């Protein structure tokens, strides 16, 4: 269990609960205050008015009149609802509903909240003490006990709200924590499995599209990329081991035999020359691999310039045409006019060259190879090299561009099996792809350069100036070579 997660979810839910309570109190406090003030004021108002009325009676009718008035009133009203008490100067009861003058009332006239003994029960009351002429003392009051109930209800309600908030908050926190923990745990399990070396695992995703889901999708994308890279490296190492072992083994046995048998000069020279040829083959494979690695790192993108794909392809076609003629292969070129792309002219030329070279190699005597360059309706550029040779079986097409892959049909032909890999790498570098399709009969290799790749054009750099200068202007129409 992760301590971080635990503390995070709990801190979060407790934070929310504390926040809720503070909000509740902040909401209740003014309400409470307003309530208190209003009720207090109203109560005091009533008591004062009552006092004034009783004082008036006293002034008009004297102490006996007031005693009668109070007695009448006490007889009418419910006990303890209102407190009325008239006492003489020595605080002896004259009239009223209290049995004796309470000790708790201070001596000075004024409004007080005191505890009074009402029918044997001490009760909180508000009283107004008035001094009447002749030393008489008047006490008018009201029992506030039933308001205390109301007050208690208020506080109980508030406390209940806080309790409910806390419980719901804690429950919610626990539930959210469990839900998140479950998902994070499944991510953890997957990542652990990957760390152990099984790259085929993927994080579980839902269609909810929430933050965790988006994160999982992103991580899965990264894993796809890593898996592809690792497989690529593994394939390459295997293939290098296989493809380099053959010429190296030949070279070794040749040299060893030479040192053992010590043949005559002529034969020795012939063997040495063959050995050099073996080494050259190894070097060629290395160079091709280095170039692929160079392309794969993507650093070549910094050297992109504006390239006319149509002119570039036409030149490559022209370059290969004598080789086609020699094999009696018809090599034709068609284009819909100038097609500007942003790219590396050397790599693009090599890619198109590899496709044409492959096509001529496999198409056989009297075959046809056609190259065409066109702009798609969505702005992308396509360079197609189609032949009517044996083609590649459907199940082998996805493998054909893998490094060192050599189809059964190509066993007898020269090459190191990196041609299509290079084309694919170049297409990818240019934001495009290599597609191998059926040409019925034959192979149709299409390099699609995405329109997005055309936007980052940079001025022609010094290194490729010769390219444009050397190129004779071609007719944009179809030309047979």
């Amino acid at each position, binding site marked *: 269990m992760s301590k971080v997660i635990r503390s995070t979810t709990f801190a979060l839910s407790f934070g929310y609960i504390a926040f809720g309570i503070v909000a509740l109190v902040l909401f209740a406090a003014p309400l409470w205050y307003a309530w208190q003030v209003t009720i207090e004021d109203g109560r005091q108002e009533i008591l004062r008015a009552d006092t004034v009325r009783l004082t008036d009676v006293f002034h008009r009718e004297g102490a006996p009149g007031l005693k009668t008035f109070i007695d009448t009133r006490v007889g009418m009203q419910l006990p303890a609802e209102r407190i009325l008490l008239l006492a003489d100067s020595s605080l002896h009861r004259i009239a009223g509903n209290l049995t004796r003058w309470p000790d708790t009332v201070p001596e000075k006239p004024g409004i007080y909240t005191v505890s009074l003994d009402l029918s044997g029960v001490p009760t909180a009351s508000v009283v107004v003490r008035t001094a009447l002429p002749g030393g008489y003392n008047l006490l008018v009051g009201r029992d506030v006990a039933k308001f205390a109930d109301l007050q208690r209800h208020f506080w109980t309600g508030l406390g209940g709200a806080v309790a409910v908030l806390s419980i719901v908050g804690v429950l919610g926190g626990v539930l959210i924590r469990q839900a998140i923990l479950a998902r994070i745990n499944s991510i953890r399990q997957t990542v652990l499995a990957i760390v152990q070396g099984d790259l085929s695992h993927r994080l579980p995703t839902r269609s909810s599209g929430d933050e965790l889901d988006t994160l999982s999708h992103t991580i899965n994308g990264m894993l796809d990329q890593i898996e592809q890279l690792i497989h690529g490296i593994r394939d390459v190492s295997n293939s290098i081991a296989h493809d380099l072992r053959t010429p190296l083994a030949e070279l070794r046995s040749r040299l060893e035999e030479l040192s053992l048998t010590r043949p005559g000069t002529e034969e020795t020279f012939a063997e040495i*020359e063959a050995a*050099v040829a073996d*080494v*050259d083959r190894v*070097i*060629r494979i290395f*160079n*091709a691999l*280095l*170039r692929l690695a*160079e392309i794969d790192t993507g*650093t*070549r993108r910094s*050297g992109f310039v504006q390239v006319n794909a149509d002119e570039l392809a036409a*030149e490559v076609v*022209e*370059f*290969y045409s*004598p*080789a086609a*003629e*020699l094999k009696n292969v018809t090599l034709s070129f068609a284009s819909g006019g100038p097609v500007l792309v942003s790219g590396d002219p*050397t*790599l693009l*030329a*090599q890619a198109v*060259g*590899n496709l044409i*070279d492959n096509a*001529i*190699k496999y198409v056989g005597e009297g075959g046809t190879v056609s190259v065409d360059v066109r702009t798609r309706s969505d702005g992308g550029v396509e360079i197609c090299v189609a032949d009517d040779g044996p083609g590649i079986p459907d199940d082998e097409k996805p493998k054909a561009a893998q490094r060192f892959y050599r189809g059964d049909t190509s066993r007898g032909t*020269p*090459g190191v099996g990196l*041609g299509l890999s290079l084309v694919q790498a170049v297409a990818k570098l240019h934001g495009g792809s290599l597609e191998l399709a059926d040409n019925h009969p034959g192979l149709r290799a299409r390099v699609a350069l995405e329109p997005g790749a055309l936007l980052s054009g940079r001025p022609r750099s*010094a*290194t490729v100036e*010769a*390219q444009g200068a*050397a190129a*004779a202007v071609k007719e944009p129409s179809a030309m047979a070579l």
Partner: protein
Amino acid sequence: MKLLLVEDNERVTRFVMKGLQEAGHTVDNADNGREGMFLAASEPYDVIIMDRMLPGQIDGLSIIETLRKSGNRTPILILSALSDVDERIKGLRSGGDDYLTKPFAFGELLARLDALSRRSQGSGTQTALEVGDLRIDLLSRKAVRGERGIALQPREFKLLEYLMRHAGQVVTRTMLLENVWDYHFDPQTNVVDVHISKLRQKIDADFERPLLRTVRNAGYMLSADE
């Protein structure tokens, strides 16, 4: 030719020096950057062969830059194990005239040295080139052998022009690829050979003395001599 080889690898040095001496050249050797810098700046050479990575605080490219800044125009061939296109561009930008990647064939090195020394002699603004009875006009882009005009495609003309500018020298397939087509990659098959044989058909087929010869393990040579 008087050559300077700045290279620290003993085996490469021995191999190159022996080959160059056998080809009739005088070769000085410096096995570190400082000595190389000193020799290059103080002695007159026809061509300097410069390794890029050298001991002695100063690398090949820095030597070249310093030489160029001080006005030394001796042709320099850079020899390097760094084969990236970017590295090649860096080498040529620093002031090198040609770039050869290790490992290399000796024939390639020799041919490139010859081409460099020829370049430094300066061909001026020639309007015509002549090898034996073969003549090309660079302005009208016409080729004539003996009395007969030869019809050439633009690229064939360019190929012939390059061969004629380097008449009497061995020209390798890579040199042709780089200079005639500006392709800096391995075209997988012997396409250059096919172009050469097509050109040979046009300029040599009906004549008694062939001008365009294949030099075994190296390349081609256009020459009027037997």
